[in-house]
């Protein structure tokens, strides 16, 4: 079965899972060709255009020099996929083209775990991340169905993303997609 055929299987299901999209993008030839395998996937960004829903997946570098502390770099690549067909519609290298030319996209920008999550247990952190992934699914489903997002879900999404996002990376994410992060990451 070809890769395209196997992706088209997803069309038959109305539930889109962000975790599956994040996982499946790594199996595409484009990813293998242009993104270093060791790059970590950042926070996905939903996008709606002409009634179709896409996901921008940022990828960034991470370096583990000392135990319990990982150095994080700003996103180095962005891949946009149609979240239903999984067809890649855009690839951007942020080191070649970005909407914040004054920002330094090449040097270390922050650490993991940052202060807000450093006091959590691994389990607590995983649970929170899992919750956010669940909220992504709801959010994408609303965009696909053309229904509006419940205010409580909106607030919860904002709250969890605010906790999990490394503060030093916020300017980069806001540069990538000001409307999305401007909405969910209020100053």
């Amino acid at each position, binding site marked *: 079965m070809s890769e395209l055929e196997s992706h088209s299987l997803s069309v038959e299901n109305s539930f889109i899972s962000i975790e599956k999209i994040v996982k499946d993008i790594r199996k595409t030839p484009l990813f293998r060709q242009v993104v270093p395998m060791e790059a970590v996937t950042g926070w996905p960004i939903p996008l709606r255009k002409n009634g179709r829903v896409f996901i921008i997946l940022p990828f960034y570098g991470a370096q583990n020099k000392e135990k319990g502390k990982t150095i994080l770099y700003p996103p180095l690549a962005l891949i946009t996929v149609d979240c239903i067909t999984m067809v890649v519609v855009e690839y951007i290298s942020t080191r070649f083209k970005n909407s914040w030319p004054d920002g330094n996209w090449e040097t270390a920008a922050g650490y993991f775990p940052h202060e807000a999550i450093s006091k959590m247990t691994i389990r607590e952190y995983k649970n929170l991340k899992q919750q956010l992934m669940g909220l992504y699914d*709801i959010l994408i489903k609303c965009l696909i169905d053309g229904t509006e997002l419940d205010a409580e879900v909106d607030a919860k999404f904002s709250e969890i993303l605010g906790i999990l996002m490394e503060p030093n990376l916020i300017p980069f994410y806001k540069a990538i997609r000001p409307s999305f992060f401007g909405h969910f990451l209020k100053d």
Partner: protein
Amino acid sequence: MSNSYNQLKEKTLLLINKMLEFEGIKGSKEYIELLSSVQNKLINEKIIVVVAGEFKQGKSSLINAYLNEREHTLFPVDVEVTTNLVTTISYDREEKINVILGPSGKEKKQRIQREEIKQYVTEQQNKGNKMEAKMLVVESPNPLLKDGLTIVDTPGVGSMNPEHSAITYAFIPNADAVIYASDAQTPLSETELDFIQRIYKHCKNFIFVVTKIDLVRDYQGIIQDNRNKLTKFLKEQPENIKIVPVSSRAKSDYLKDGEEDDLIDSNFTLLEETLGHIIRERRAELMLMPALGTVGKTILDLKRPFVVEWNACQQENKQKTLEKQNELQEAIKQKQQFMEKNAEWIMALSDGMKKLQQSVNYDFDMGLSDIQQKANTYFEDNKKVAKPGYLLSLIESDINSFMIDTSENIMKRAAQLHGQLSELTGLNINQVELEELGFQFDDEDKEIQAKRVDKFRKSVAAVKGGAFNLTYAGGFGAVLGGIIGGVAGTLLGPAGTYAGAYYGAMIGGGLIGIAGAFTGAKDAISNLDDKDRTVIKNKIVPVMNDSYKKCRYIIAEVFGNLEKSLRDDLREQIKIQKVQYEEMLEKLKAAAAMSSEDAAERSKTIERSIKTINDLYKQFEAVAIEVKSGIEVAEKTSGEQTTHSARKSMDWADM
């Protein structure tokens, strides 16, 4: 869902644990028992997934692949093999396989080995079910089953054995999801659509799995065709019909050689996700809402005596304390009157039951008349007359479906009657009643109440409201399951226990009784050489009449036990409330007799307890809101109407 079901379940269990550890509950045996039973119900819950479909559609392969079974011995698959028996598989620490054998009413459980399964479940080795096998019950240490998943494999649509069809029907209304398997090589047939239509109204959580996609180059056409047909037959929007194409062979290859591409090709990840999503939604509504309803009410019940005692310890006004004592004595007297044999509510229950029975009997007669009319149209249909076995299956399934409808109707109306009687006997007491009795809450409590946001209150109220009906329907079903479902309980073995957790055991028992009327008739009719309409009709009509009699008998049995169950349940609740009032009165008297120093000291202790209870209530509210909002989100995403004010525009996603 804003959170996964298991996380919410863990939070609910944690809250129950905290309540059981609370010092203030130690002397209240009835609340400890109540919470422990809720806890056990949550821990031991069974999630039932029924796999249905015609013969040779790959159901057994699908289950083997889903459960990561590399050997195909649990659910035998072979080119020539067809499953002819209902099989359930659920978790246990070690593998146990039992077959339920023997003539109706005299079934026995027999332990067998894996290698022997084929002898019982396949048409080839157990032709015409000469072994009189009713069901296969498998318990397995498979980790995928550990969270309570029970998979029910059913024989093909229109199985030749009426008892097996009846068992399948008994499971359907209790199922969390139905996986309907059809082959990618052929579109859904009229027989399949007819069967789907019949069971769909009893369980709407359907996943249509198209199997064997590895055998077809362009299976998308079949999927589109199936979707169009299902949209038309089920009167659903196309997007509400979930179709998942899978390849059990690819999954099997993956299990053998670990090639990730095979797993992707199998598409089983998507099936797991779809099933998980459905189960989460349904379970939150069915299990967590009732559990939280009980938890919330228990917290308030526990708080009440402390509030009363705290008020008494203030010793501000002796006259007022005396008035409160009198009011409580009045309330106790009233509860005592409610416990008398000729109490008003018992008369009301009796009257209510008579009306209920009349109305159900009327609906029942109308229903039978519908079945008769439908049967007449079958007899007029030449294609159906040419296949008398199939014709009989249709009538049989009409009767099964009608009995499920009738029992659901009875449950619903009985729950309404229970609600009215609770009102009459003051069992739906809440904090407001305490205020009416003249007791004031402590300052912190007032503050909490004032701070409480309206929507929170609404959410919690909805949880409580939903809880009543669901808890009642469930508990009541369990009682009925235990009494009338005895047949199914014996027949189904461990499966009967959880089927009976609702009211499936009753239906199951009933349906299997009715199936008795059809047993033998199918073979006799199918073997008729003469396909003459009159001959066939003359053979079938007596079978129908016999099954009608059995249906009437089952309904009469239900009513015979229903009134007693309702009366016992309400009386028990009145008794618990009376005991609670008596304890309050005692505490009130003791506090009034205390020295002012002792009363002040006691006040401090009570304040600590009230603070703990308030904390527990806050935690309850948080979990309840999370569950409720999860269900609402699920409902909204299912396309239901929503309030515009609570929503936000999503223009941040627009490009």
